[in-house]
């Protein structure tokens, strides 16, 4: 499934544990049995992913609703 997300900026956050600045990389996110790869910022070392509020309440919410109605 193809869901394009706008490019996400890490906004000055660093990984608290690894002390590394966040980098954009492909991660797999899942919902309602569908999963897809998107570019999201996260820690290059431990892999924690960052979801900013605009994304959670914007595009992500839209896609959630779409998948819920499928």
């Amino acid at each position, binding site marked *: 499934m193809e869901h394009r997300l706008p490019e996400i900026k890490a906004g*000055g*956050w*660093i*990984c*608290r*544990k690894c002390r590394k600045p*966040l980098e954009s990389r492909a*991660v*797999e*996110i*899942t*919902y*309602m049995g569908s999963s897809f790869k998107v570019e*999201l910022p*996260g*820690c290059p070392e*431990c*892999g*924690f*992913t*960052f*979801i900013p*509020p605009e994304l*959670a*309440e914007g595009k*992500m*919410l839209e*896609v*959630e609703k*779409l998948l*819920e*109605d*499928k």
Partner: protein
Amino acid sequence: MDQETLREFESRCTQEEPPACQSFCPLHVEARTLAGQVAAGKVNEARKTLERHMPIPPLGGWLCEGPCKEHCLRKDLDQALDLPLLERFCLRAGRTLPPLALPATPHRAALVGSGLSSLAAAWELTRKGHRICLFHPGPPGASLRALPPELLPPEATDEALKQLAALKLSFEEIPKVSPLWLERLCLDFQAVFVGLDDPALSAESLGLRPEDLLLNDITRESPRKNLFLALPQPPSKRPFIEALSAGKKAAASVDRVLNGVAPGTAREKEAAGPTRLRAFPETERPKPPSRPADPLRPSPEEAGEEARRCLNCNCLECLKKCVYLRHYRAYPKKYAREIYNNISTVFGIRKANSMINSCAECGLCREICPSGADMGSFCAQARLEMVADRHMPVSAHEFALEDMLFSNSPEISFLRFQPGLEKIRWLFFPGCQLPASMPEAAGAVYAHLCSGLDGGVGLFFSCCGAPARWSGRPALTGRVAAGIREAWEKAGRPRMILACASCRLFFRAELPEIETVTLWSILKDLPCPSEKAEPERLALHDPCASRHDRATLESVRAILNRLGQATEEPPLSGRLTRCCGYGGLADQANPALGLLYARQRAEDTGQPLLAYCIMCRDRLRAAGLPGLHLLDLLFPASTFEAALERPSPGLSERREKRLLFRRGLLRKLWGESPPKEENMPEPPLEIAEELLPRLEDSRILRSDLAAVIRHAALHGPLFAQPEKGIFLAALRPRQVTFWVEYEERPDGSYFIRNAWRHRMLVPGVPGEGAESPATLEGFAAEGGRV
């Protein structure tokens, strides 16, 4: 859902039935549409509308006598709409394309006579592509040309004949007809039509006996094989529209014969007669009928003026009263089909999910609809089926269900006998929302009941389970109801006193063995706790769940009477009251529409409100209307003005108030102090002021924030901006991920700067809750496709 359920509903909603003008028109011309188009100046479209049903329009439009006028609803107001005038206008002013025929067929049929009926039949049949021969004694259309020009201008006949020639009608002049000639014709052609309205013909000259003229009303079939007829009509019987209709109907029969189908197949709808549409046109001030200078040639202004007199007859009664039904821009019959399709969808997007969940299931439409169409129960059934099929996303109702589980958890719910008693006859059940908004009043009511009623009054604090039922989850509903039943049985089967109308509906449906009364029917017979009526007149709002509860409606009015409180009934009240938007979890599934429900109700009253359901009171308050709960009058805890303006508590505040209600009463009346685990320390949080409304909208509770912070305090947050001293933590305690951005204060407290949530699963967020609903065995293991 089976087809039958859909059909049953569809047959109730009569909005798609034709208005009277159309149903009584023998040709079923869509007069309402036509008038609307003329009124809007769309005269070419109006002409198209006319031509859809009117055979041989250049003649029909001039000659129709307008039998619709006897049935037009406007006639009761002043005078019927003059549709013939509008039709003549369309013919004169509207452009039209030359008529088109379907691809040619090999079938042949004969028409006899060139009166109006034969030309109408010719128009219908040639356009179907059949090869039609019209036999006429004398010049074609002679009888029409003989009409006075102010009734039918000669150009109209020319135009009609030209159109028929273009449609490849072959005209055959015959010098003389005879019985034998007709017999031969009937052998040569698959079907024959004779238009006896042509004065050049007569039954005798064709050898037609009286018994041959006994026609089937709709098919115009004669007992003689393959023969169809139109009979001449006297002036009193509107000969022209009769001829048009006879020609059109006979042509439909001939077409069926040519296609090898019995002429009578599927013809029920062709008869002219009363409609099932119940139209309630807005009564407007009578507008005088347009009196054109030349009634045969009305000007566009004159025609427009007449067209605007049409009342645009529709039902749509329910839409006038329900904001939900207006919101989706159609009407129940259409909605029912959309919902049915939504349920039957196997692959693809289910577009109606939100619509199904946004109905308040308040039952007003059923009261309003002349045939009792009940959109509420239709939506309720759709929810049940979609949840059972695991096609209804849980997200719409998840918060409400979690809130129900919270209210029913041992942390909140309790049942106690009246202090000092071992038996009770009564059990007060305030519901989950009254103590969440007015805990002091709920406590005061309990004390009042204890002092006023004999036999002991217990207190049972819990949620009835209405959210489970509204969300379409019978197993979950059953579990909650079973819990209540068990507690009630243990308490010795006392009579239950319910403060909430929705609880009462729930008990009646799910726990019929429990005898219940509403708080109001009890309070009406107890000494009045307050002496003081307020000087201001209040608008009394009945909850939708009480619309059929006569005893409650009357009790409330009796209480107000005794108190001497002046009230006013809003336009819709009692049996016809409107929902505030809480019903059916409408506002949970669709907060924006939920607000419109409340606003609509607020607009009904326009003055301070008096409600006796706490959700009604709080929701209308949140929609901007100052208002009281009846308990504010009976057990005043503040000034009148302060009570009117008291804000509706937020979601977190409701939970905190429930806790306070429980702890306060348990300590005060039963001397119990909370056990240790209830005192689990919350991390000290301070929430940025501007964040509060957003938390409400996203349904993020203070306790959710606390859980994230507690987790971060133990395991460390995920991200940081060290130079600013801010942290970002995330946790997925159930199928929602919460993010919290915060600062740590030197005194060990936390300042919450921002918080947000999403449901998608993203790698690396701590929390096991992961992908299952919040409990009660995963919302009773049904619903909530994950």
